[in-house]
């Protein structure tokens, strides 16, 4: 277990910088971070580079849109959340290994339907825990519920999409099973809300998209 990448998140301002960058849909530069966090550009750059050195952020270079050719200036240094996962568990736990063992067993035995039913029940239970035992009403805001569960939702037209794949490496190893379980989990979370989750993968982000209820926003 190497704790160092996570140790750099100890500083609350730096953790705020990390969370700000992670919440953006595209790579951001130091000016955007400084403005968004109300901190100085130098301090923003200091924390951004510490996070990049620890492997928590990735650095890309790009010119601002619309500026090309001579006189466009140096490409700006941009940051985005790194793909790599870092888990810290005290005492040490190996939940990812367990998840992969169970995923393979479910796949080989063809028990997807039982696993999906379990995921749907657990999703409903999570919502009940958050809402004091109540299922969501039609028109309830799915964004608040999904945020509370760690999904990083954002609006995309009539859909809610999710920046974060909560099951990362296990989903990448067993996509039909694990993305299907994630869909079932979200169906359980939003059951009663009138929202319609579906699998609609894009090159990045979570494979689940949620069509808002026609009562959302009324």
């Amino acid at each position: 277990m190497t704790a160092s990448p996570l140790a750099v998140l100890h500083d609350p301002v730096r953790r705020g910088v990390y969370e700000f960058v992670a919440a953006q849909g595209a790579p951001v530069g130091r000016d955007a971070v400084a403005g968004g966090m109300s901190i100085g550009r130098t301090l923003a750059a200091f924390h951004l580079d510490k996070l990049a050195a620890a492997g928590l952020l990735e650095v890309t270079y790009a010119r601002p849109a619309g500026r090309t050719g001579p006189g466009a200036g140096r490409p700006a240094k941009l940051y985005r959340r790194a793909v790599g996962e870092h888990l810290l568990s005290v005492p040490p736990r190996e939940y990812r290994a367990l998840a992969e063992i169970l995923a393979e067993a479910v796949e080989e035995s063809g028990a997807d339907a039982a696993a999906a039913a379990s995921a749907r029940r657990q999703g409903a239970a999570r919502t009940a825990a958050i809402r004091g035992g109540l299922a969501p009403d039609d028109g309830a805001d799915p964004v608040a519920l999904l945020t509370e569960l760690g999904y990083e939702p954002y609006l995309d037209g009539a859909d809610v999409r999710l920046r974060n794949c909560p099951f990362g490496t296990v989903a990448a190893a067993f996509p039909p099973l694990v993305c299907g379980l994630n869909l079932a989990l979200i169906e359980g979370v939003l059951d009663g809300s009138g929202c319609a989750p579906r699998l609609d993968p894009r090159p990045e982000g979570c494979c689940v998209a949620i069509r808002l209820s026609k009562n959302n926003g009324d």
Partner: protein
Amino acid sequence: MHLAQLNIATPVAPPGSPELEGFMSRLEEINALADRSPGFVWRLVGDDGDDATGLRPYGPDVMVNLSVWESLESLREFTYRTGHLELMRSRRQWFKAADGPYLAMWWVPAGHIPSVVEAGERLEHLRVHGPTPEAFTFRAPFPRPGTLAA
């Protein structure tokens, strides 16, 4: 080099039956999606149609899908990052759980069209030896020959 892939599946009922309607009704759309996906090279099609649902090279109950892609990444993108994923999620409604490996991949020279005999041998190799450069899977891939392992 290109990537060849074979997968086989035993349906719960014959392709013309109501049980398989949900699968068969989406096949044309998904095949069209494959055909226009980046990196798609070729897929096996029977003499009597636009797909391989009429072919039974490995036994009367075993349906077959054999295709060639420019890279493992292009096949992975189509398989898991398009509407194909939804079809895979529902696969238990239409197909029995496989008894052993049901998918094998291997590298072929660009321009080579794999035969069903060759493909069957690769799947058998995977069944006997596990993932090797001769036959492997998404979860245990082997790099294109002549490239260094990542």
